[in-house]
């Protein structure tokens, strides 16, 4: 228990408006061990960002609500903390890198000022010189010349901006870094650079990480554990090996892999998952994936499947709870490795 940096249990989050109630996250469990990286995978709208915002308690205050569950950070119950305590944790213990570097820097402050502010917020005693020194150190660490600290964000390219954002996030040496699709807005060559950098810094500083992404390539490269999220539920979770190499898979995970272009099999078409994600304000009764599932059975539309665990690997699918067709599933998967 004590080597868990983050332990989410049975977390449910809703967005409630006058018109409808959106069930964004439904009873999920997530665990991150110290120094490890968890990849949270899923398509847009699956509840990945909502989960991340819940950890920082930054859900939009007028609509977002945590219904039940607990989030423990270093065995401290985050949901029970008051706003002041929470503010001390944000940025200092848990830092977040947002998706779009173009908009996550303040356009009227120089990058140096912005990094300095991140440091100042949690180290009030530091002298001005020390802060400046630290700013330069951070910039150097992410590979930006420290003389550029007097420049404004618009003078940086997208990749450089994301480096600045990462420098800001790491400035207080957080224990947990939440990266919300940190490379989605960047082009491919820069993606690789930034990912390498994140990976190296993580290893050097020993930071635990929650990597939110929809790119399975990123997962393969830098994650230790993976959780696949669909319509607010974790449908499959395990170590990276479990997800990429194991025989049994949730049909959704299989579909995810099927949607990736592959160099080695020259198929003319990708095999996307048919249909769309269910409306989160009106989730289906049984399995959330049932309407799109190729292996749908009678039970799937009626009973919500429980978790089936096999060592570190856990699945939420009737196919495996009923032990039907397990071999067939294993055979169908496998165009990734």
């Amino acid at each position, binding site marked *: 228990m004590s080597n868990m940096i983050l332990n989410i249990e049975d977390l449910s989050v809703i967005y409630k408006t006058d018109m409808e109630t959106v069930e964004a996250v439904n009873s999920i469990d997530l665990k991150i061990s110290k120094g490890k990286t968890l990849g949270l995978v899923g398509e847009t709208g699956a509840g990945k960002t909502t989960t991340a915002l819940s950890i*920082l308690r*930054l859900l939009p205050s*007028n609509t977002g609500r945590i219904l039940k569950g607990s989030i423990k950070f270093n065995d401290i119950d985050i949901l029970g903390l008051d706003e002041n305590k929470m*503010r*001390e*944790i*944000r*940025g*200092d213990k848990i*830092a*977040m890198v*947002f998706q*779009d570097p173009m*908009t*996550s*820097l*303040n*356009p*009227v*402050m120089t990058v140096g000022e912005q990094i300095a*502010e*991140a440091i100042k*917020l*949690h180290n009030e005693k530091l002298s001005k010189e020390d802060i400046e020194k630290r700013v330069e150190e951070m910039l*150097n*660490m*992410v*590979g*930006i*010349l420290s*003389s*550029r600290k*007097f*420049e*404004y964000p*618009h*003078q940086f390219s997208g990749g*450089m901006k994301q*480096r600045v*954002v990462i420098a*800001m*996030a790491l400035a207080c040496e957080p224990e947990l870094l939440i990266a919300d699709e940190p490379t989605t807005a960047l082009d491919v060559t820069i993606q690789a*650079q930034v990912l*390498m*950098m994140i990976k*190296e*810094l993580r290893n050097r500083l020993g930071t635990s990480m929650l990597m939110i992404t929809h790119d399975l390539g990123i997962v393969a490269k830098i994650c230790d554990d993976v959780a696949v999220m669909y319509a607010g539920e974790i449908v499959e979770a395990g170590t990276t090996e479990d997800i990429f190499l194991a025989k049994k898979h949730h049909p959704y995970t299989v579909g995810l892999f099927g949607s990736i272009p592959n160099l080695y099999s020259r198929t003319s078409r990708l095999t996307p998952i048919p249909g769309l994600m269910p409306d989160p304000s009106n989730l289906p009764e049984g399995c959330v994936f049932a309407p799109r599932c190729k292996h749908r059975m009678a039970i799937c539309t009626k009973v919500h499947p429980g978790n089936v665990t096999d060592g570190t690997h856990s699945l939420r699918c009737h196919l495996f709870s009923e032990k039907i067709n397990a071999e067939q599933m294993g055979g169908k998967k496998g165009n990734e490795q």
Partner: protein
Amino acid sequence: MENVTSTSTQQNVDIFKKQSQTKEIWRRFKKSKGAVIGLFMLSVILLIVIFADLIAPYDMATKQQLANKLSSPSAAHWLGTDHFGRDVFARIIHGGRTSLIIALLATISSCIFGSALGAIAGYFGGKVDSIIMRALDIFMSIPDILFTMAVVFALGANFINLLIALTLAYFTNYVRLVRSQVLNLAEQDYVEAARAGGSSSARIILSHILPNAMGVIIVNTTLNVAKVILYQSTLSFLGLGMPPPAPEWGLMLSDAREFMRNAPYLLFFPAMAIVLSACSINLIGDGLRDALDPHLKS
């Protein structure tokens, strides 16, 4: 680390040198001709107004010389004399003191007061927003002029009360302007990022939201200075401005009205004073907006 990332930045060492913020803003400000002209005009006006006593003693502005009333501009009286034989030039430069100081102070105080309320309403939203905005609606439903008159009437016409009255008449603009800006800016990712970094609400408003709304606020403020000068003259016209015989531009205008046909310069010169100062402040505001916006930096 360096081997991964240093490639793109290596050659640019010389280009990026330390440049102080104020120097940079000044450099961009200088680029706009209008702004420089405006600054020059305002400096001249301010110098004249500050050293008014050296140019023409205050006596000249208030001493009545009825034998010499309504005389045209001449060597003795550069801009002529009014219906009490007071020197118009002296009245204008001394009047500038009250007019400009009240206009500037009233604009600044209404800007600060209004912006603070608007920022709070826009940022916190919900009940706070409703309370502030509904109170404002009630406030705005009373005609400005009636409201100011009531304030000046109740408190008496003097410098401070005039300032209070003008502030109350103009702060409503800022509440609505800043609120709409904040509503927009609070949704920006960098505000979310600042929150995720542990910034308090006050810090987010002061260092992330308001600086980004500054351009709009500054332009509005400079436009308002001109409006406040005119509004003052309205009050003076109604006898609620600075009490006579104190020279004041609005008061001069309303006095001159009766003699428009015979002595048009009485109307012309104070009007010119108002136009020139308003114009110079507007030009400066325009230049400042561009200079403060780092996007336009080139």
